C-alpha cells in the first residue's frame, strides 16, 4: 500500500550539524570502551546451536554398530550427487549384525559438491546420516575433500538411538515374526 513518508523539517540543532556530530561521537566513544563483540576465531570457537546443519556424517548406534544399511536412498536424493555408496555384504566377523541385510562397503561424500541441504539426513530410514556441528572443512587437494567411510564415522561418532530397529526385527524373527 502506498503511503506518504512524513518529512519533518530539521530542528535547529540538526541544521547546525555539529551537535549531531558530537552526539555521534559520544556513541562511538561508548563503543570504544565497550567489550568486543567478535570471537578470535581459531582460538575461540562459536557455540553451535542445536539443529545446525554442518558436515554430513555417519553415526553408530549406542552399541557401537554401524547403522547404515546401504539402501542408497541418500545417494539417490542427493541434489548435487555428492554421495557415492558401494553396497556390500555384512562382514562375517560381525555375527551380531548378521541379520542385517546389507552394509556399505565404501561410502564417500564429496564435500566439494555437498550443498549442506540435509536431504540425506531427512531421507535416511535408519537415522544413520546426520548433519552435525562441524562447520570447517579444509584440504589441500580435491582428494582430501572427499570424506570416505572411516572419516565419516570418525566425524559422526555415536548418537543416542530410541528405536534399535534391527534389535526389534531380530527379536521379532526369533518369535516367529508375530508383528
Amino acid at each position, binding site marked *: 500500500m502506498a503511503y506518504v513518508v512524513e518529512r519533518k523539517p530539521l530542528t535547529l540543532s540538526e541544521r547546525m550539524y555539529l551537535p549531531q*556530530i558530537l552526539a*555521534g561521537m559520544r*556513541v562511538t566513544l561508548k*563503543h*570504544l570502551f565497550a*567489550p*568486543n563483540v567478535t570471537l578470535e576465531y581459531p582460538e575461540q570457537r562459536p557455540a553451535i546451536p542445536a539443529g545446525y546443519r554442518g558436515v554430513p556424517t555417519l553415526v553408530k548406534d549406542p552399541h557401537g554398530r554401524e547403522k547404515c544399511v546401504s539402501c542408497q536412498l541418500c545417494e539417490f536424493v542427493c541434489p548435487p550427487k555428492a554421495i557415492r555408496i558401494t553396497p556390500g555384504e555384512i562382514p562375517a566377523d560381525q555375527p551380531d549384525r548378521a541379520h542385517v541385510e546389507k552394509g556399505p562397503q565404501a561410502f564417500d561424500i564429496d564435500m566439494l559438491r555437498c550443498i549442506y541441504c540435509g536431504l540425506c539426513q531427512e531421507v535416511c530410514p535408519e537415522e544413520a546420516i546426520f548433519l552435525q556441528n562441524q562447520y570447517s572443512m579444509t584440504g589441500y587437494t580435491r582428494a582430501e575433500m572427499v570424506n570416505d567411510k572411516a572419516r565419516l564415522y570418525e566425524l559422526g561418532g555415536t548418537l543416542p538411538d530410541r528405536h534399535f530397529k534391527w534389535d526389534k526385527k531380530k527379536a521379532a524373527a526369533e518369535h516367529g515374526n508375530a508383528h
Partner: protein
Amino acid sequence: MIEFWNSLHPVLQAVIKGLAVIGVMFPFGGACSLVERKVSAWMQGRPGPNRAIPFWFAWVPVVGPFLQRLGVFHLMADGGKMFFKEDPVPGHVNKFYFYLAPVIGMIPALTTVTVVPFGAYLDDAGRLVPLVLANLDVGILAVFAVSSLGVYSLILAGWASNSKYPFLGGIRASAQLISYELSMTLSVLPVFLWVNAPGGQGTLSLFHVVAAQGGAWFGLWMPVSAIVFLVSLFAETNRLPFDMAEGEADLVGGFHTEYGSMKWGLFFVAEYSHMLIGSGVFVLLFLGGWNPLPWVPLAGVAAWLHLAGQPLLLGLLSIGIFLGKVLFFIFLFMWVRWTVPRFRYDQVMKLGWQKLLPLAIANLLFYAILIAFLQKPVS
C-alpha cells in the same frame, strides 16, 4: 653540546635536521596507521590487529604478549610489506609524473614540519626561546603556502595515472582545496589581528601566537574561528568526512587507485604528516601550544617546578605538553573519521562556499571590530 652543534657547518646542520624530520615523520606515519586500525577496531567492537610477533620477542614473558595484543609488531609487518612487495606500474600511465607524484606529496609534508615550533624553554635571561627547526617570522604563511602544495601531488597522481577514477579524485582534491583554503585562512585572521596589537612589531610567527596565549587561549574566546579552522583542516587533509579525493565507494581508490606498495605508502605517510602538522598548527593557534592550561603559561609552571634554570628539562616538558595536545587531535581525526559518514560531493562544495566562507567572513568582521575597540591605543 650546544657549542658543538653551533660549530658544525650550516649545511651539515641542515642535513641532520632534515634526517631528523624524516626519522620522526616516517615512523609517525606508520604508527598513526596502526593507531587508526586499532581505534577503528575498538570503535567497531573488534580487537583489531593483534597477531604479529617476532619469534624472539615471544619469549619475553609479560611485555611480549601485551605488545602483541596491542598490535605493535603489525607496524613493522606493514612497513616491511610496503617496502618489499612488488611495485607494479600500469602500462598506460605517464611514468615520469607517476613516479614524481608521491615524492612531491612528501616534500610539503616534510617541509612544513620545519616551521612549526614544538616546544620552548627559558634561556638564562628568562626569555622564552622556541624549539623549532626554522624560526621563520612568516610562520603561518609558510605553513599555508607550503602545505597547500601537497594537493599538487594528488592532482599529478590523478592525471599521470591516465585513468578516469584517479583523474576524478585529483580534480575533486583540487576543487576541495580551493574551496576550503579561503575559509581556513580567513578564520585565522582574528588571531593575528589580536597578536599584532597596534604599536607592536608586526609578526606572523606561530611562536608569538603561543606567547600571546599565556592567559585565555584563542580557542576559548574565538570559538567560531576555531571551529571553522578545524572543519577546513579536515577538508584540507582529505580526511573523512571530506575524503572526496579517495572516496572508495564512488572512485575505487581515488587518486591512488593505480598506486601500490611504497609509492602508495608515501601518499599515506604524507596524509598523516599533514594531519600531524594541521593538528600542531591548530594547537598552536587556538589551544595555547605548550601552555599547559588556560591562564597557566609555561613560564608559570617553570617557576612553580623550579625548572627555569634547566632548559633541557623545561624543553622536554613543553614538548610533552604540546605533543599530548597534538596526539589528542590525531585521535580526534580518527574519532570523527569512524563516526561521520562521507559527505556527498555537492554537499562538500555547498558547505565550503555557502556555509563556512560566509561564517568565516562574518567572524572576521566581528572580531576586527571587537579587537579595534579592545586594543584602542590609549591617547
